[in-house]
């Protein structure tokens, strides 16, 4: 039985407080009006775009690339992105695929990006930890359905991590609802003016999608998905508790059936969730592979977190039946899912790069031009690093090696999410500053607190799981 130590509780709270303070400090400093933007850009000497990507790298907003968002949506997004034709000078108007932006419009546009910055930071951090809990639940269900003999010792660890699912998904729902009530402008398609035919901001493409992309629909879908996942989580935990106290394997069989049903539900809802919550940030862009791609990233993170929590619990003297073969198996999953993620990333990227269809390729052009380092950096962190580090069978048994690989993988997938969300919401005005780090720290603290409180609720080893003996003697 694990008890939440005071130190851990305190550190989690410190993380949350420091995160919130960092966030607040940076939030206050962000430009609040077009005058602020003007002053900021003047202070940087009317810069030539490609200098540092810093917190206040405001000079980047020049070329107006993120055409899918904010006020320029009246032209097809694909036209705009031939970089060379765009005016590079700072003063005066610049052409953007035929749409001329005046200085006022430019300032307005940049201001909108800055207003999105804190919201995007919260959104990414909230989704990052939520997706860990959700994918962990999927992995947990897979263990039941596959009748895995190696993993029953880790089932309670997984149940603990999925403890974050309820708070995490509620936070996600609230964030989506706030966007729906126009408290922020993360989702461009939520702007009702876009649908007014003949209006100034009329967007034919978005109007055509409004049968699916509307706030009511989004919130209903989100509510159904969140309810479904949490109901499965509730019953999975309940059944495993009953199995511990029961006299036969009735509850285990129920867990098996529930897990099989959940996995079918999960793969549909996860796919739709990824369109709703992430892909619709770029409402002009679409990719059929996107659901799988998000899924692969989620799985890597979840398995990594399972491995890290297991190693931590083992290191403080709990989980004495877990041996290095269990860690080895988890590390194999980390390795294999990292490669699976890369496979999907590359499949999506290469197909779009190769065919070079304007309406699709803008997605990658904005990312490569404006997010070069995070875009390729996360590829190195999520692919090259685990590939080389976790290939050796011996290394997969060394705890600190797995921990180190895990930290890099988690940071890499945070960046991956950053690359999915930020270009659509803040465009060139991105940075990894206090708002981003602060919100990441806040949710990290919350995640640690919830997960370890949830772990402390039940004994760490299932008592009457039919496969527990095999798991105790698991040896690879």
């Amino acid at each position, binding site marked *: 039985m694990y008890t939440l130590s005071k130190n851990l509780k305190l550190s989690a709270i410190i993380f949350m407080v420091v995160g919130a303070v960092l966030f607040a400090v940076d939030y206050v400093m962000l430009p609040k009006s077009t005058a602020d933007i003007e002053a900021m850009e003047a202070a940087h000497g009317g810069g030539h775009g490609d200098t540092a990507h810093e917190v206040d790298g405001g000079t980047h907003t020049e070329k107006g690339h993120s055409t899918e968002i904010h006020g320029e949506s009246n032209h097809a997004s694909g036209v705009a992105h031939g970089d060379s034709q765009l005016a590079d000078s700072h003063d005066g108007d610049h052409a953007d695929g035929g749409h001329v932006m005046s200085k006022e419009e430019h300032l307005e546009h940049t201001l909108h990006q800055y207003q999105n910055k804190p919201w995007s930071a919260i959104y990414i951090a909230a989704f990052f930890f939520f997706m860990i809990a959700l994918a962990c639940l999927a992995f947990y269900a897979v263990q039941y359905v596959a009748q895995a003999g190696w993993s029953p010792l880790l089932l309670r660890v997984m149940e603990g991590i999925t403890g974050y699912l309820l708070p995490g998904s509620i936070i996600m729902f609230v964030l989506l609802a706030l966007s729906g009530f126009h408290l922020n402008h993360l989702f461009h398609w939520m702007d009702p003016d876009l649908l007014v035919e003949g209006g100034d901001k009329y967007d034919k493409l978005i109007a055509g999608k409004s049968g699916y992309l509307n706030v009511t629909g989004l919130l209903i879908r989100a509510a159904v998905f969140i309810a479904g996942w949490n109901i499965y989580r509730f019953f999975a935990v309940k059944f495993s508790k009953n199995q511990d106290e029961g006299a036969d394997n009735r509850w285990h069989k129920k867990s098996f059936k529930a897990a099989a049903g959940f996995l079918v539900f999960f793969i549909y809802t996860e796919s739709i969730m990824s369109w709703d919550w992430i892909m619709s940030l770029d409402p002009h862009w679409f990719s059929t592979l996107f659901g799988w791609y998000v899924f692969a990233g989620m799985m890597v993170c979840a398995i990594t977190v399972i491995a890290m929590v297991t190693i931590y619990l083992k290191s403080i003297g709990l989980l004495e039946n877990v041996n290095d073969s269990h860690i080895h198996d988890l590390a194999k999953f980390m390795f294999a899912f990292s490669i699976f993620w890369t496979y999907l990333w*590359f499949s999506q*990227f*290469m197909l779009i*790069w*190769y065919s*070079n269809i304007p309406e699709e390729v803008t997605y990658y052009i904005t990312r490569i031009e404006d997010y070069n380092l995070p875009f390729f950096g996360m590829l190195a962190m999520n692919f090259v690093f685990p590939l080389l580090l976790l*290939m050796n*069978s011996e290394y997969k048994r060394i705890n600190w090696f797995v921990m180190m690989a895990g930290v890099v993988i988690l940071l890499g997938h945070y960046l991956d999410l950053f690359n999915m969300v930020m270009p659509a919401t803040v465009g060139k005005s991105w940075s990894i500053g206090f708002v981003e780090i602060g919100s990441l720290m806040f949710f990290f603290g919350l995640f640690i607190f919830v997960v370890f409180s949830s772990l402390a609720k039940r004994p760490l080893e299932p008592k009457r799981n039919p496969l527990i003996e095999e798991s105790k003697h698991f040896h690879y």
Partner: protein
Amino acid sequence: MAHSVIHAIYTDDDVLMNAVKEVKKKHLHINEIYSPFPVHGLDKAMGLAPTRIAITAFMYGCLGLTVAIVMMNFIMIEDWPQDIGGKPSFSYIENMPAFVPIMFELTVFFAAHLMVITFYMRSKLWPFKKAENPDLRTTDDHFLMEIDADGQNAQELADFLVTTGATEINLVANEEA
């Protein structure tokens, strides 16, 4: 020089495993064990060194990747950089996504095939090779442990092997070795 070995035959892999441990305890040298199927953990019990074939495979994979890169860089970029459907053939990196499928496949191809060939060479397997069965039954359901009998009391050794569960013991004078 006359060279003699003892062949101890077992009919069960569990018995064989225990026998191997017993023999190891006595510091007798096991020349070879013949088995119809892989016995899990036998190599560990015998104290065989772990295989290095995975390391060779990794190096072959690196070789394959290099071959792919050098080949396509020469053909597509250096030798005749044509404009094919607007693909940028100014430098290797610009056109790299198009080459990745080939880079991947050649890496796998080299790693797999060269590793298999390495395996054949190291374990001396080839067509028309003369089979080395000391006893035909070892390909079906018997296990055979071959122990050096030189300088040993053959009778004493045979008695000891019977206690480990051997069902049949043969003293073989091996002239070739």
